[in-house]
């Protein structure tokens, strides 16, 4: 048996997960398809058009929550004490397990859901053209609004992945609660940093804190902060997920 990282085992794990979740996936996607179609149709009633940004606004309502719920569903077996022996005893390494789960819940999910959503959007537009005489606006996956959604999902998803691994019960609620606490802590940290760096500039003595601070700031650390959060939410969370999976016992 191949001792290193094996893509063949990753492929088998992905296939296994998809077969196990086939029923739930089909139902969820069908519900999303129907809602996506209805929302698109309702959108066209008012102005007889479905612009790309409008469509991806509707797409985002389903894409992110459904993806996060899918992430939790993928780890249901992992945290079920009556089922997880079968998964944990499979001859697959931890990096392969994590990669399979991440790949399924990000790239594969995004690709499949985007293709389905675009097809549904096009169909809704055809219906709109026939019924309301709506304008034809081609839906393109190279639009900025689509990629912004993807960026948001790819950054938030690892946090929910860690939540799905860590919590055994009320996993969604506990993850959102933890994330809320984390956001509050970071907001507080930002306020403290803001006060520390801007106090000497006298921005607290005026009314418009932010705008005055930006005007008076000598250095811009926003790109540094952006990278801090990208690294924290992406690779660091995946590393945490790896260690959580390594430590997992039945």
């Amino acid at each position, binding site marked *: *048996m*191949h*001792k290193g990282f*094996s893509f063949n*085992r990753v492929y*088998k794990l992905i*296939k*296994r997960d998809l*077969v*196990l979740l086939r*029923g739930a996936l089909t139902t969820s996607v069908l519900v999303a398809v129907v809602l996506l179609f209805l929302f698109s149709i309702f959108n066209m009633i008012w102005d007889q058009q479905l612009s790309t940004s409008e469509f991806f606004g509707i797409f985002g309502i389903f894409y992110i929550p459904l993806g996060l719920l899918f992430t939790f569903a993928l780890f249901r*077996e992992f945290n*079920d004490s*009556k*089922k997880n*022996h*079968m998964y*944990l*005893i*499979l*001859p*697959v*390494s*931890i990096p*392969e397990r994590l990669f399979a789960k991440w790949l399924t819940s990000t790239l594969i999910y995004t690709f499949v859901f985007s293709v389905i959503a675009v097809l549904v959007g096009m169909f809704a537009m055809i219906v709109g053209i026939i019924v309301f005489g709506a304008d034809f606006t081609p839906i393109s996956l190279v639009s900025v609004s689509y990629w912004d959604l993807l960026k948001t999902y790819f950054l938030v998803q690892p946090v929910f992945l860690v939540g799905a691994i860590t919590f055994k019960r009320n996993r969604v609620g506990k993850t959102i609660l933890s994330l809320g606490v984390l956001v509050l802590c970071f907001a507080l940290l930002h306020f403290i940093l803001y006060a520390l760096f801007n106090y000497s500039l006298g921005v607290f003595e005026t009314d418009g804190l932010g705008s005055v601070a930006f005007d008076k700031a000598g250095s811009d650390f926003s790109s540094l902060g952006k990278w801090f959060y990208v690294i924290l939410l992406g690779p660091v969370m995946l590393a945490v997920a790896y260690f959580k999976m390594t430590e997992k*016992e*039945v």
Partner: protein
Amino acid sequence: MLSIKKLHFAYSNSPAVLSNINLNFSTGNIYGLFGKNGEGKSTLLKLMAGLLFPMTGSCNLHGEPTKKRQPHILKDVFLVPEDFELPSLRIGQFEKINSSFYPSFSKTQFYDLLEEFGLSPSNTISKLSFGQKKKVLIAFGIATNTPLLLMDEPTNGLDIPSKSQFRKVMASAVDQGKCIVISTHQVRDLHSLINHVVILDDSKVCMDLPLETISENLWFGMTPKKNLEDVIYTESTLGGRAILARGERDETEIDLELLFNGVIEAGVKITESINSETHA
């Protein structure tokens, strides 16, 4: 094949379940792992499968710790747990999604065993009884052909005909390249199946012997009317069964239930008797 050295394990905020466990399991044997309820049989099997991690000590398969869950180690282990749930799939689908991970898996063997157990690949697992689900997992475990097969209370939930069916299936499954460890507190279910006994009591191993050694040194039968000093352990029930030092007596069939009770009640006397007989 699998060696356990100075293993210690406790669940959080609980007293030790296993303490200073030293065991070696080798191929070509079917081990019977016995112990009272809560003595750590299931825990030991989970530690052997790498599903739990020892607090101290080691559990190595082919010299590598099972807790690392390396694919080249896990491909050689399969565990049939006592309590489990299987996904709501047809048996055939269940086999397809799981068998590809085990290089020595035999589809023919799996479907033959299913037939033996009176199940069909088209049966949906969620609609089966617990005993039937157990049969699916037992058949799958045997068909993986892993050198180490661990079974935790495999006969729990099986009806009387299924228990003899299980014995028949297990007897045909064993070969020189396999090591099978069966844990149970229903010792009679493993009658004529095992060739090595491991008994756990009070978090420790209190017997680890091949049946051959036991039958060479101990005699099982009705309590004698005279020479009561030869009796190591006796039970008043069922006309009085007893364990005696074999000495010059004819070889008897090992009464596993009597042996188990004897080891729990008079373990030191039995061990001393076996040691003295072996040295004599």
